[in-house]
């Protein structure tokens, strides 16, 4: 086993925390995350930060954190002081390792040099910029408020502000986007020399404005178009030295996102804020999605849980495999994976060239078909 592969599995022992900041200037048409639209609601951001800190105080003590991720929503809606205050609370209660990854998601229109430098000062060392595209028309289709120019400026501001690791999020496959348009976005993204790029296929999620318009007959993303664009990006990114390490993620060596790696290694993470999902001591938790309910619960001194799920035995092992499969290096097969490979469904996937066994690991040969494998794996019952 190569040392890189060993490192991929070792992060399972590391601890992470997620903090959800739900506020957005407006909801994007494709988004189904827990979001509060600041254009329609009276927002008390300071109050929310205080509530999250109160929730943190209710979480039992834990080991020091190796990764912190502020996601959203739009975490860049917070001022640097609020971000610092949240990080301080995490420090105080759980501890944070010296080399911890402290990452924040930001919209390009919020991300100025001053803001970047101020976040750097409170301990943020990674930013994930919601660039999405370098095409005007695609940005408009996606309901984004920034321009391609603001996108480029944000990347530069991150560098100048001293942020160690800069990620670009791109969304591909909107019906508005021609292949040529995507090609230009990819070239522009690589030219900006980020440390990490995530590309997400536009997905029609239930209950979103996008889903409603597709149901009403508007064009939606097309799987062949998505595959073409994905493959084009993969080739270009590899040529620029990017390592493909998960279905949607590419990084310059050493810049892999640790928070996500912990998730895919089936490691544990605590989570705070509206609609946040945690996984600790084999228990999956999810918080309420509505802000008023969340504030109510926390103010009353109770955990704002909407539900929990405990996984045991084979289920937990099955989940480890299914989550780990998303990594390009695959997942250690273990007894269950080994048996699956020998089962008729497993053999069929191997015969079709979609799954392979690689030095005791299950590896999806074509990351674009990961769900085809995961589906069979989740349905597999050992001993049948």
């Amino acid at each position: 086993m190569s040392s890189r592969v060993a490192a991929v599995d070792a992060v399972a022992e590391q601890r992470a925390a997620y903090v959800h900041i739900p506020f957005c200037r407006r909801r994007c048409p494709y988004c189904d995350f827990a979001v509060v639209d600041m254009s329609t609601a009276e927002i008390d951001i300071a109050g929310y930060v205080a509530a999250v800190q109160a929730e943190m105080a209710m979480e039992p003590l834990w080991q020091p954190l190796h990764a912190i991720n502020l996601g959203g929503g739009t975490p860049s809606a917070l001022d640097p002081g609020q971000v610092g205050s949240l990080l301080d609370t995490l420090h105080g209660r759980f501890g944070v390792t010296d080399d911890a990854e402290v990452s924040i998601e930001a919209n390009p229109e919020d991300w100025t040099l001053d803001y970047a430098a101020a976040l750097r000062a409170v301990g943020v060392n990674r930013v994930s910029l919601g660039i999405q595209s370098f095409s005007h028309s695609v940005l408009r289709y996606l309901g984004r408020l920034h321009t391609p120019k603001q996108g480029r400026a944000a990347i530069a501001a991150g560098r100048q502000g001293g942020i160690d690791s800069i990620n670009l999020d791109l969304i591909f496959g909107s019906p508005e986007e021609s292949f040529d348009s995507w090609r230009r976005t990819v070239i522009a993204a690589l030219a900006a020399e980020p440390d990490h790029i995530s590309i997400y296929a536009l997905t029609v999620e239930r209950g979103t404005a996008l889903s409603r318009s597709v149901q009403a007959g508007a064009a939606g993303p097309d799987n062949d178009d998505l595959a073409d664009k994905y493959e084009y990006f993969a080739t270009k990114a590899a040529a620029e030295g990017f390592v493909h390490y998960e279905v949607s993620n590419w990084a310059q060596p050493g810049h892999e996102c640790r928070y996500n790696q912990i998730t895919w290694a089936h490691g544990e993470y605590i989570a705070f804020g509206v609609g946040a999902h945690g996984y600790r001591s084999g228990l999956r938790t999810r918080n309420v999605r509505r802000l008023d309910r969340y504030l109510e619960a926390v103010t009353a001194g109770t955990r704002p849980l909407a539900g929990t799920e405990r996984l045991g035995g084979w289920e937990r092992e099955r989940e480890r495999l299914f989550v780990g499969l998303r990594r390009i290096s695959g997942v250690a097969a273990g007894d269950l994976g080994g048996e699956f490979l020998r089962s008729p469904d497993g053999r069929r996937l191997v015969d079709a060239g979609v799954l392979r066994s690689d030095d005791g690991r299950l590896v999806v040969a074509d990351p674009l078909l990961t769900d085809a494998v995961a589906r069979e794996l989740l349905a597999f019952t050992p001993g049948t």
Partner: protein
Amino acid sequence: MTDPTRIRNFSIIAHIDHGKSTLADRLLEFTGAVEQRDMREQLLDTMDIERERGITIKANTVRIEYRAHDGHTYVLNLIDTPGHVDFSYEVSRSLDACEGALLLVDAAQGVEAQTLANAYLAIENGLEIIPVVNKIDLPSAEPERVAAELIGIVGGSGDDVVQVSAKSGTGIAELLEAIVTRLPAPGGDSDGPLRAMVFDSYYDTYRGVVCSLRVVDGHIDTGEQVRFMATDLIESADEIGVLRPTATAVKRLSAGEVGYLITGIKEIDLIRVGDTVTDSSISAEKALPGYAEPKPMVFSGLFPTDGDDFDRLREALDKLRLNDSSLVYQPETSRALGFGFRCGFLGLLHMEIVRERLEREYDLDLVATAPSVEYQAHLTDGTSAQVRSPQDLPGQQVLESISEPYVKVMVITPSEYVGTVMELIQQRRGEMGEMTYLTPERVELHYQVPLAEIVFDFFDQLKSRTRGYASMDYEPGDYRSSDLVRVNILLNGVPVDAFSSIVHKERAYRYGRAMVERLRKLIPRQLFDVPVQAAVGSRIIARETIKAQRKDVTAKCYGGDITRKRKLLERQKEGKRRMKMVGQVEVPQEAFISALRIDE
């Protein structure tokens, strides 16, 4: 005992919707056989589907007592006949029990092909016919024109045509008098040994098998030992009776009378319709001329969409058969559709009714394979084999030739549509026979057409090309050698049995092309390229490719919401479980079903 001279046995011959059941109701009501308060619309039609479709499936009889103008009371036995071409064998049974018939025609519609076919049948059987024009009160009624058509068929003059409105009751009194005065009394030998014809039978849950009976000679008494001459069964006549229309037991039925007979027999198969009942001790020498067994003409595989329903389907078919001996079926296994039955039907309507009854009365969800006819395969060793399913067709190396059943088709159409009707029939490989103008506006066309060409959508095509004005009837003809081939549909190289079809050589390409295109659209993309081919023997005549799925992955894990993602995949997998594996290809059952349903 009723004096035979005071008995009139008759049927009503009519096209669907021309008002036969309403007329029957009105006759019952007028004669007081049914109290007004017990009137249900269309009393004679007992099955739900009959009532809904306005057609009669099983022959039913009713005894009416009528005091005529001559002061005598007459017994009128109305023997109901089915109005659809599929059931013409039942019509001929019913007519055999009668001396006369009312030829009932809608004053707005005119004579239709099936009516005409049944009228000819009645004339051949020597029945006296009273032409009746119904619905004369409709705004669009043309009673004079329709009366002229009727006279053209049965002869006579305009005065012989009785004009009624069954709905309002106009003309019913005149009609009853005409029945008494114009229809002959039954013949037969009242003093001879018993000969009674079983012209129908049905299964009653409480009573077992009930036979409909027409006494020709002698009499039958309750409790006597009777012998069924064809099967040589000896049984006690536990109950005999008449339908008024409710079953009323009587002590005796004598020559000329119509009624029912209940013995201890519980299995419908033991009674042969057309058999003669005689006295077991003083037996008649010769049985009455019987009937030919009705032959299934159309075959189709019926499969439950949920494989767990196979046993329920079997039970339902068994139950239906209790009252429908013309329904035949045997288990069939399909790779694509699982376990089901190959069923034989008298015709398309029969097939549709059986299927609907199975779905409605037995709550089954079914898929039917394309209807097929019974081919004769002539083999190189000189023998022949019946082929009711494409899978049964012997391989090309032992196959000398195939012949297929032809039917004699009669179409009646307004003359302006003659051209389009002829074109349709020629497309269906029909050979033209006679053509007769009933009136300058209406034409009767005769053709010999392969039955296989009729069973698809011929009737619908005929209707749509003539804006619903044409009508048709067909009767079995002979077998003729035809240039037929079996087209197989292959998925990833594996034949999908449900889609094999025996078709005329010239149609093979079109059928194959249509099926492969349809399946390419219906079958989801797989992890590899899947060829869909149509083949005649080893020759591929059409091919499509289902391109491999290129993307099957969600972009991200919803900010750590692993549970949701896992459940989504599990749900998707649940859907996949119901898929059938054919040659390594996962096919949703719905794809097979839709492919089969498109023709409907």
